[in-house]
């Protein structure tokens, strides 16, 4: 694919109209924390029937999981409940990425809140949960009736999320006792359902770094679980980010995802890694949205802003900025197209490719947005002109879903075979 199809353009135009009407007028409230993003996210889902599509997909995934368990015996690893792994998605990836791009013209924060709830929280439960867990938590997360958080990062870990993790799960009767704290958790302050990663403390002397990572599903309001108010932060104000504190939270085995301590099955290390490729592709689409918006705003401004009797667009230094933004747009769009095309063919980017795409897209979006601020001069520094917000928002692309530096390590590892 080298351009959007007629059908994809229809999706784009419909979502664009929705964003103009339902998001654009609320950006200030979202930015100042007067409005949470969840109402708009749910409206997007119901308006375009994405909730119904999720329900249909859920029914198929559940059915496939049941068949898989019945046929393979209880010890088999549950894998993706969807269609056989190497079947193309018929271009479905575009249906996810187009709304991401369009929303990022105004509000990358909504995309983050949505991506974490649907992609990470629902995605993890549906991929690794038992049929009972899929029904109990997965469906309402996938349709956005419930909001999800996905909690791996801790104050002391971050880039070293799995190794440095200290949150612990101790066996307690037929359940577990959970302790620890998580930070920078998207939707943390308001989530109904939390996917929580912790290390198995089985009383042995296995060093903490090497202990098994287990995945739990927690309901808001569980005794011992505290969800902090949202942090103040540099950008992405429309996506609430907070901390979680667990002290002696007691959960039954039915909260252990996959109801197995087997690492390859429900295990946290695998489960955390499942998400890397999708997440990184999602960030590239977000970057494309920011770049498109900054470019369009900059072109208009270069035409309109007149100094010394000439539009600033007549100046070569300004033209250079616009040309570089266009190069960025083309490159990131092509990366996004490649991801869509691979998915349609039933293939997936390798981890190194996804990392390369995310690294480039994140850095480029950040650069483009800062150059847009520069092109707008003093106005660029004023909130009214949107590029100011987009520049602050874009910076996070280089930090979450793996920092730039971590992407470099993943790319280098594949190149050098280390």
């Amino acid at each position, binding site marked *: 694919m080298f351009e959007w199809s007629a*059908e994809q353009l*229809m999706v784009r135009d419909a979502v664009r*109209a929705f964003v103009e009407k339902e998001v654009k007028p609320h950006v200030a409230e979202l930015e100042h924390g007067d409005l949470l993003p969840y109402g708009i996210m749910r409206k997007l889902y119901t308006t375009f*029937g994405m909730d*119904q*599509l999720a329900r249909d997909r859920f029914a198929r995934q559940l059915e496939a999981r049941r068949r898989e368990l019945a046929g393979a015996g209880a010890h088999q690893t549950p894998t993706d409940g969807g269609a056989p792994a190497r079947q193309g998605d018929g271009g479905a990836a575009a249906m996810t990425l187009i709304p991401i791009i369009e929303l990022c013209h105004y509000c990358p924060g909504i995309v983050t809140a949505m991506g974490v709830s649907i992609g990470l929280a629902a995605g993890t439960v549906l991929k690794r949960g038992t049929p009972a867990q899929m029904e109990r938590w997965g469906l309402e997360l996938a349709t956005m009736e419930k909001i999800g958080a996905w909690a791996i990062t801790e104050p002391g870990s971050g880039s070293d999320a799995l190794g440095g993790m200290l949150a612990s799960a101790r066996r307690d009767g037929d359940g577990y006792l959970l302790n620890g704290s998580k930070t920078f958790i998207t939707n943390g302050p308001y989530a109904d359902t939390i996917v929580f990663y912790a290390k198995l403390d089985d009383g042995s002397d296995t060093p903490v770094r090497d202990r098994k990572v287990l995945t739990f599903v927690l309901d808001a309001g569980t005794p011992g679980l505290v969800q902090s108010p949202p942090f103040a932060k540099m950008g992405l104000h429309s996506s609430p980010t907070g901390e979680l504190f667990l002290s002696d939270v007691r959960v039954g085995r039915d909260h252990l995802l996959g109801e197995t301590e087997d690492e390859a099955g429900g295990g946290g290390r695998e489960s955390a890694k499942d998400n890397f490729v999708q997440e990184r592709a999602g960030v590239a689409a977000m970057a494309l949205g920011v770049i498109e918006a900054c470019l369009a705003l900059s072109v208009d401004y270069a035409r309109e802003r007149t100094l010394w009797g000439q539009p600033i667009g007549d100046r070569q230094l300004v033209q250079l900025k616009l040309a570089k933004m266009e190069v960025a747009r083309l490159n990131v769009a092509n990366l996004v197209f490649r991801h869509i095309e691979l998915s349609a063919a039933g293939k997936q980017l390798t981890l190194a490719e996804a990392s390369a795409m995310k690294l480039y897209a994140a850095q480029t979006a950040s650069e483009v947005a800062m150059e847009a601020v520069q092109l707008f001069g003093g106005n660029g520094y004023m909130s009214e002109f949107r590029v100011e917000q987009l520049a602050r928002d874009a910076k996070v692309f280089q930090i979450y879903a793996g920092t730039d530096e971590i992407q470099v390590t993943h790319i280098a590892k594949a190149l050098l075979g280390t």
Partner: protein
Amino acid sequence: MNVVVCVKQIPDPAAPPSLDPATNTLNRSGKLILDDSDAYGVEMALQLVDAAGGGEVTLVSMAPNGEVSGLRTALAMGAAKAILVSDDVLVGSDALGTAKVLAAAIRRAAPDLVLAATESTDGYTGTTPVQVAELLGFPSVTFAKKVEVSGSTVKVQRQTEAGFDEVESPLPAVVTVTAGVVEPRYPSFKGIMAAKSKPVETLTVADLGIDPSEVGATGARQAITSVTAAEARQSGEIVVDEGDAHERIIQFLEQLKVL
């Protein structure tokens, strides 16, 4: 109940329009989209069919170059099928020529009700639908702000300058709806994917049994003799309040002779 909606496909109003200097007509060679005015008719029709508990919505459009983009949008909203009349002999049609074509196409669908917009966004003569009604021998009700069907009657609240009239008409009838009569839905993703495989019957003037000399430039009884650019709008006057703003506003209004 079966409803036909006339939908005009027009050049994107957001893009700068261009005129053909030879004929003074709008250049329609690029991609055309669903006229926003007609999205209301489509939504109204979908709601009426829903309320009736059965039937379907058929779109009828006349457009150059086999254009279907606007039809696909309306199909994605939920219309069942479409009839498109596209034929080189139609170039240069006036509103009556257009009405002849639309009426012939509508007749094939044998609807209980025909909806159209009060006026299109690009041509906005607002004359086509009533001519269609006349040619079909149907009663017509214009400027509907509310439409209800009960049995074989359509009840319409008809927008007037002072308020609205309540009007009833036997079916089949042609009703033109105003913008805002209903809130047009966004096409769902599923609807967009389904639209691709919904039937669009493409017809020529010959298929409709219309004499080609009756339509197109030859049949047109109107010609555009000249086109002049609209006068650029004067920029407004900004009154900065230095304590005397009210006086200056009163002066200004007196100057306009509105006080």
